[in-house]
């Protein structure tokens, strides 16, 4: 903020340039972002609340919501524990291969969801590395619920770790050392010293992870059999309804996911302002 008001004449663009660029920005963002967001709610509610409630009371829609919640409930805690462990291991110690490990953690972001699904088929499909063995124990992974869960985990592995690593890197380990030297146990040090320091970034990572877990489509669609009422998540159900020319029902479900993503964006700006506030405070204290 202070920067802008402090812009000298040398850095200030002519008024007409400002108007053109602001106009372009507003136009582009309206066309590209606001319009799609608006159209989801328009299509979901334009025939009144009735289509919306009918769409939601459908048995297949309900089981899709149930499966999405189940996959998210398994995936998010696992990736959160992993994120905490990975951030602790990579920021509190130095060991050979550390930067390679961090790069590998980031890989799922770079891999196309469809290719991620393909990888899981190669592993857990009937002819896959583990698929045959698991099948003989009666556990079907691909085209079943475990496959959906594994695909969801794969695409969201990095979210929490990626938020925590830079923050913990910056904070260093001095506070932890102080706690240990005052006689705190390892667990006390973690819960009383580390956790409060990383609370907001952790929350932010969990939030992003949850949003992505609920919305994943490509990877899940490859490993799911698309059997309605059985292995369909909400995004898959939206796809199925849309292909059945039942657009109102598809948009009704879509509007729920879209509301969640708006909530994510709101929480994100709130958390970011909190994180900024905190780092300013700690700068002042030093």
């Amino acid at each position: 903020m202070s920067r802008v008001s402090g812009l000298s004449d040398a850095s200030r663009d002519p008024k007409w340039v400002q108007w053109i660029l602001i106009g372009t920005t507003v136009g582009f963002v309206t066309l590209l972002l606001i319009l799609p967001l608006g159209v989801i709610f328009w299509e979901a509610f334009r025939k009144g609340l009735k289509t919306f409630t009918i769409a939601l009371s459908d048995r297949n829609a309900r089981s899709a919501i149930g499966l999405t919640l189940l996959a998210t409930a398994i995936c998010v805690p696992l990736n959160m524990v992993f994120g905490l462990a990975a951030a602790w291991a990579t920021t509190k110690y130095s060991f050979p291969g550390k930067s390679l490990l961090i790069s590998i953690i980031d890989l799922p972001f770079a891999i196309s969801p469809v290719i991620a699904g393909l990888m899981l088929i190669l592993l857990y499909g009937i002819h896959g590395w583990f698929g045959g063995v698991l099948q003989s124990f009666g556990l079907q992974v691909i085209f079943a619920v475990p496959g959906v869960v594994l695909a969801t985990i794969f695409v969201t592995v990095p979210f929490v770790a990626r938020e925590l690593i830079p923050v913990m890197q910056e904070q260093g380990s001095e506070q932890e050392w102080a706690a240990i030297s005052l006689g705190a146990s390892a667990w006390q040090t973690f819960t009383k010293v580390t956790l409060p320091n990383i609370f907001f970034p952790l929350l932010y990572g969990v939030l992003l992870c949850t949003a992505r877990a609920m919305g994943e489509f490509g990877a899940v669609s490859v490993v799911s059999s698309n059997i309605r009422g059985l292995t369909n998540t909400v995004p898959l159900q939206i796809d199925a309804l849309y292909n059945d020319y039942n657009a109102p029902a598809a948009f009704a479900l879509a509007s729920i996911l879209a509301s969640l993503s708006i909530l994510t964006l709101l929480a994100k700006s709130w958390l970011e302002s909190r994180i900024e506030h905190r780092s300013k405070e700690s700068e002042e204290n030093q």
Partner: protein
Amino acid sequence: MSAMRATQTRRLPGFGLTLGFTLFYVTLMIVIPIAALLFKASSISMQELVETFKTPRVQASLRLTFGASLLAATINTLFGFIVAWTLVRYRFVGRRLIDSLIDLPFAMPTAVSGIALMAIYAPTGIVGKQFLAWGIKTAISPLGVLIALIFIGFPFAVRTMQPAIEELELEAEQASASLGASRFQTFLRVTVPSLIPAALTGFTLALARALGEYGSVIFIAGNLPMRTEIASLLIVSRLDENDIVGACAIAVVMLAATFVLLLAIQGIQWRIERKTGRN
């Protein structure tokens, strides 16, 4: 300082536990799946590979995927710069709202984006109708693929350039002006060169995302073989036909392209660090 010295001789507790769990999880969830694909791909014979890529349908799909992704990343870099510049340098009503909306394509499930884009750009949609009157088909055409890829890559371009613009040294602009340069000359000679690394990073990230995109594209694309079928969709249809070898062949090429792009980003970052390290 004593704490610093202690770190060199002693370790905080939890090293074995956290590193052990991290390695276990990463191996199980990331490394083994990737290894499975690479292993499968290495078992594909040269002949099978040639056969897969000789078919016109695969070639058309790769041309479309790479062409549309490159074009989308270019458009995103250009508009991403304008939007980032506007958000950092100017103050106007709605700035904060726009700033928080930039991440919408990240936050929105791709299938939801996909049907929303289709609803807008279909021949009956509000924008599609308009363009159809001018004789341009915005959906079920390569243009539709492009639109979806611009949507999905946009945040990458803005969010990599925004911090770079915030960190620009205003003193350099002042010095340039005091030496008699016009605002435009200063922009071209001083500002643009220092933004190039960020622009390149944003371009590469948007490109990598576009190459692998699936959900937001398949609805608006219409998936006509030879015309609007992207590589990700081709992998899916190969799987539906139970042609695992064909699916792996295409997947490995796309994966290799992504890894090359990732290395390029590393290279750019490394150069930036070396430059700033020297100063």
